[in-house]
């Protein structure tokens, strides 16, 4: 995954003392894999997304019709791996969200040691490739921790994505105007109350799209766990290929299934993003 965090400031917060009506600043946080996110502005049938998505679906239907021999067999075997792929992805993203929230809070904490720990975690984890982290937890720490493949996979993915989520949470929390915290404190709320009741509910709206993007990236990266004896989509394809030597056909199907999933989810995130931006109301 390419990992950068872009915080686009659409509208500057109102400068105090100016007579302009105060508007909530609109922030856009993108943590993307670059080309994946479809441009929702492109409504034509021949948009890149439409061609890719429906092309992939057409291919996965037409190929078995044209040559049923390997393709139908592959389609009978390989999708078993979807359970593991989605299992690892969903469990990891949940843990990563919790870790990310804690990290994000740590990154903005005024207490020095907490801040330092959170920052070191983010720096260290972001500096090590995910594959190396997977190997480290499975092979190096696995014997000590008595972890099986799926557990190691989930642990490594959660820790890795937790660091990226931490940056999303930090940016999201910092995008909420300072006046919100001040108003909450002035009303007698504690910092914790203000955080949970005022700041975080507003943060969720800002960070939903980037978290959706992380979900897609994690879905793709989950293919790495096929190395750790986890029977995910990629590993099922490899198993089939190595017994039948139909490498081209097997990996074509595997690639098409990943492509359909990621394109589908990225469109979903795109729609969510537009909705939040255009009619970004809290109530409806």
């Amino acid at each position, binding site marked *: 995954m390419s990992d950068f965090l872009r915080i686009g400031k659409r509208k500057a917060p109102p400068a105090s003392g100016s007579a302009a009506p105060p508007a909530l600043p609109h922030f856009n946080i993108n943590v993307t894999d670059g080309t994946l996110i479809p441009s929702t502005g492109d409504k034509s049938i021949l948009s890149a997304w439409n061609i890719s998505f429906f092309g992939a679906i057409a291919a996965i239907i037409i190929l078995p019709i044209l040559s049923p021999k390997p393709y139908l067999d592959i389609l009978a075997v390989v999708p078993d791996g979807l359970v593991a792929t989605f299992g690892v992805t969903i469990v990891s993203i949940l843990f990563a969200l919790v870790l990310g929230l804690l990290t994000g809070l740590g990154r903005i904490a005024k207490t020095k040691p907490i801040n330092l720990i959170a920052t070191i975690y983010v720096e260290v984890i972001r500096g090590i490739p995910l594959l190396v982290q997977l190997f480290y937890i499975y092979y190096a720490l696995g014997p000590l921790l008595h972890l099986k493949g799926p557990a190691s996979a989930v642990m490594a993915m959660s820790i890795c994505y937790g660091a990226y989520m931490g940056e999303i949470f930090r940016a999201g929390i910092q995008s909420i105007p300072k006046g919100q915290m001040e108003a909450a404190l002035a*009303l007698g709320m504690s910092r914790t109350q203000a955080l949970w009741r005022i700041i975080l509910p507003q943060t969720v709206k800002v960070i939903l799209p980037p978290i959706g993007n992380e979900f897609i990236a994690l879905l793709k990266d989950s293919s790495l766990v096929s190395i750790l004896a986890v029977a995910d989509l990629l590993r099922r394809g490899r198993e089939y290929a190595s017994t039948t030597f139909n490498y081209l056909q097997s990996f074509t199907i595997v690639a098409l299934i990943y492509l359909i999933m990621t394109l589908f989810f990225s469109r979903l995130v795109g729609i969510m993003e537009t909705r939040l931006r255009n009619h970004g109301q809290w109530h409806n």
Partner: protein
Amino acid sequence: MDNGIIRIKDACKHFGAVQALRGVDLVIAKGEVVLVIGPSGSGKSTLLRCVNRLEHLDSGEIWVEDDCVTSPHANIRKIREEVGMVFQSFNLFPHLSAAQNISLSPLIVLREDKAEAQERARALLARVGLADKEYSYPEQLSGGQQQRVAIARALAMRPKIMLFDEPTSALDPEMIKEVLDVMLDLAKEGMTMMVVSHEMGFARAAADRVVFMDEGQIIEAAPPDELFAHPKEERTQRFLNHIL
């Protein structure tokens, strides 16, 4: 005047190299309405924000009733419950309806009964003339309406003191009056108010005293008619020439 409800003694504060407050002394009596005026950067907003410790003083003391706000041992949350604040940019919570904005703090800070808090929120909305906006969200309200909700939100904590930080500066002219009317009512009911504002009409109608600040110091303080008609200091005169 030493038994004032707010007592500020030798308040000093700087931001980096800028000295925002240079030894400010001010006592505000219970029920008094004090308007603080002065050029931008004169420290008037900073002074106001120090009263409920949104800013910390470098030195000096601020007392609210029998509590020292500036003491590190102060129960600042308890003090803030009794000191309501209204901001220039309203700072309503955008994810909550008008009524929820008002009832949230009574619910989670004062632990009021839910039905009671909602009932009071409705009553407060009616009081600021927005009885029909209970379910409206801040973005559906005009600036003047938002500011009136913000005043109702502060009042929901049953404060003894209200601080207003340029409450009408971000409003279109036609909306200023509706906010000032609400403030005027409050003043008539005997609320202690410290108001940073240049609304001279409000000063004449409601203020007991006008305090003129410049460069982090109080230059002079007097009842509005006296200060506007016969300022003692030349700096006050110059400032008044600009805004009157």
